[in-house]
């Protein structure tokens, strides 16, 4: 296997892992819906990033389409969840306002 590809995969893969861990850390440490949602989205991006990184197979070869499809699915799922969570948050605030 081409070491150049391996290094690129490793570099971006590790960035993905770092994003994942940063997000998890922020998720644990920080309160508040906003920060937690951003943290979760960063976590998700980190995971997706790992997948995209491992799909990369150099400038000559077509990248592996399967992780790409997985990430596409994942992004849509993440936005659905974010939208739902935001709606929850908005509703909570409304109740606070009325209370």
């Amino acid at each position, binding site marked *: 296997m081409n*070491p*150049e590809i391996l*290094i*690129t995969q490793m*570099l*971006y893969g590790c*960035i993905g892992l*770092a*994003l994942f861990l*940063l*997000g998890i850390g*922020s998720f644990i440490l*920080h309160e*508040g*819906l*906003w*920060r937690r*949602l*951003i*943290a979760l*989205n*960063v976590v998700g*991006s980190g995971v*997706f*990033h790992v997948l*995209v*990184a491992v*799909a*990369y197979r150099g*400038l000559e070869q077509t*990248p592996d389409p399967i992780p*790409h499809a997985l*990430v*596409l699915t994942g*992004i*849509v799922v*993440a*936005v659905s969840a*974010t*939208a739902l969570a*935001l709606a929850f*948050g*908005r509703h909570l*605030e409304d109740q606070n306002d009325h209370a």
Partner: protein
Amino acid sequence: MNLFLFCFDLLLSLTLLALAVAALSSRDPRRGVILFITFGLLLALVWARLRAPDLALTEAAIGAGLTGALMLGAARRAAPRFDSEDSR
């Protein structure tokens, strides 16, 4: 080994990480969301670099664009309240 490409990769990665840290450590929701949108755009760039144009498209449109719009719409409503909580 293409040194230029590697340097570019490194620069891109570090910028991305820095953005993530900035977005995560921001206390003001509006700023956090803006940083998050920027992070998403940069992520799209990275994925473009990794030859995943579909994902770059989707991330730019959904990950950064719509998620950002959703959060922004809500963050603005929350901002005054959040500030007051934060200053306590």
